């Protein structure tokens, strides 16, 4: 374990250096390009959040987009209130007379930041308790979270006066953090998002290598055996679900800052499955690989959609099917397998060396 931990630390440092210094240099410090890349980094956080629950604990959460959306809307509500004096414009169109009580606390930035983390964690926790107390596992976790996601998105679109319905929340102000107005096309903002990603990854690496992560992997391999050893499986699963949801909420907040709007499409089934795709392509077993997968797929999407305006979805589908069939552990699996193979070759060569000189 310790050697793997070292590998992960090295990977994390390289990843952080590339993201912090390499990418902006390649992008020529261009505001637009940096904003695009900051979008990928925000999505990398959701992907790595999914890898915690899916890769480490074996719980395939198809509703990750719901918690992402909650964070995104929390941030958007705050920015919308700051952009409008009094009532946000869309509420007037929906005949809402006074500011709904749900919106009032979002005047405060501190509350918003806390809500963006804690509301998803709380809702994720409720669903987790609901499922895992009944020892729901495998496919049924995927189905319940998927059904929840569909219901949640419908509810959001339905409550037009509260959420802006199908249009989402647009015309947002720029966030001001300690007197610094956050311009999404600036180097400072890029550093903020990159910093968030690196912190989230460091936390994820720590978590997967801690005793908590070890128990989660034990549960993934055989929940009953973990239970017989006296571990309370349901509470471990609930906790990892909460953490994953909070991270997704965090990513959602950053995503709103990047794109300067929040839309119910963030909570769609296809977006949720896209997160699963990124995570699978990178490798669900490692948080860094999952984040890398999100960045690679999104970059590819950006480049391919420039070249093949119509057909890139098709290419993405083909890549994904090939990954599932031939690289079930993603890019990470490919790397770790080849590392193991090289080691084995080296070991056999060393042994042969010993055999030729038996008495020296």
């Amino acid at each position, binding site marked *: 374990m310790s050697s793997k931990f070292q590998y992960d630390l090295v990977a994390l440092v390289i990843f952080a250096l590339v993201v912090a210094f390499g990418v902006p240099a390649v992008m020529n410090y261009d505001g637009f390009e940096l904003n695009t890349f900051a979008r990928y980094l925000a999505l990398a956080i959701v992907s790595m959040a999914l890898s915690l629950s899916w890769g480490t604990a074996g719980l395939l959460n198809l509703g990750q987009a719901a918690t992402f959306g909650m964070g995104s809307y929390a941030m958007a509500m705050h920015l919308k209130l700051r952009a409008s004096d009094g009532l946000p414009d869309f509420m007037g169109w929906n005949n809402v007379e006074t500011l709904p009580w749900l919106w009032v606390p979002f005047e405060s930035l501190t509350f918003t930041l806390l809500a963006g983390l804690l509301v998803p964690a709380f809702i994720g926790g409720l669903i987790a308790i609901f499922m895992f107390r009944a020892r729901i596992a495998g496919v049924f976790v995927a189905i319940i979270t998927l059904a929840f996601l569909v219901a949640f998105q419908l509810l959001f679109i339905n409550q037009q006066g509260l959420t802006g319905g199908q249009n989402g929340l647009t015309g947002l102000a720029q966030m001001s953090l300690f007197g610094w107005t956050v311009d999404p096309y600036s180097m400072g903002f890029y550093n903020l998002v990159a910093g968030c990603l690196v912190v989230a990854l460091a936390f994820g690496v720590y978590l997967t290598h801690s005793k908590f992560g070890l128990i989660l992997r034990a549960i993934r391999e055989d929940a009953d055996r973990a239970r017989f050893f006296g571990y309370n499986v349901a509470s471990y699963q609930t906790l990892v679900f909460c953490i994953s949801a909070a991270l997704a909420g965090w990513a959602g907040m950053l995503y709103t800052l990047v794109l300067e709007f929040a839309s119910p499409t963030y909570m769609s089934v296809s977006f949720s499955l896209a997160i699963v795709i990124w995570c699978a392509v990178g490798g669900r077993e490692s948080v860094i690989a999952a984040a890398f997968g999100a960045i690679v797929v999104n970059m590819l999407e950006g480049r391919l959609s420039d070249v093949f305006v119509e057909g890139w979805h098709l290419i993405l589908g*083909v890549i994904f099917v090939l990954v599932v069939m031939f690289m079930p552990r993603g890019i990470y699996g490919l790397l770790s397998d080849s590392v193991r193979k090289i080691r084995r070759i080296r070991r056999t060569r060393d042994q042969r060396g010993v055999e030729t000189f038996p008495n020296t």
Partner: protein
Amino acid sequence: MDVIANQLFAGLSMASILLMIALGLAIIYGAMGVINLAHGEFVMLGAYATWALQTYAGIGILPALPLVFISVAAVGWIVEKVVVQNLYHRPLDTILATWGIGIILQQAVRLGVGAESRFVKGPALLSGNTEIGPLIMSNYRLFVIVFSMAVLAATWVLMTRTEFGMKLRAVIQNRAISECYGIEAKRVYSITFAYGAGLAGIAGALITPLFSTIPTMGTGLVVDAFLVVIVGGLGSLIGSAAASVLIGEATAIFSIVINDTLGRIAVLAGIILLIRFRPRGLFPTETRR
């Protein structure tokens, strides 16, 4: 009273469509434990095949049904041979792979035919309504209800009264032992998958006059149909039928009591509760896996 009766009929009509889609899914899921998220795209292919036959060959919906069945079944057979067959030992990965196939099929249709919605004329024979007192029923919807029950019956006969059905049930119960008795499990799986896909194609053909035909029509349908299968119980035909009536009627009734969207949310919440407390569905079949 009139409103309720008409709403109940609408619920039944929806149930019949759900049943048609869910049947294929239930067979595939029951037989091989594969969650086929590309099923909605098979429905979509069926709808487009019907549109193409009507527009370019002048064949109406009803005579087109066998052709649609065969062509979509062929697509399903290819998908099974190329992709799904390699994933039987990894059931969670089939969700992902079939979703990828769904994306491919959807985009292929969008590129080939275009994203705008297509319309298919219903058969002239079945236009008009049947009225019983205040209850007004469209003949075409009545036909779909009857037809879905016929498909259910045919599937039941196929599963219980034919040699193929016997082989399939043997493979479901114990693949290794049935292979020892000379049943080619791989072939049984391929045919089952193709049959399920063909049923989805027929469902797609039948819903063309009721829904607008667009490349993304399958995505919404597959979630609903899958919930029907889970609620009905693993691979149980009767369960799927009961669950589709239950979900269709519940949606219809909730949508007059509350409103359309909140009604759907209420049904989804009910389904989540049901899966929580009866994860094996309403009518679980006793099989050893």
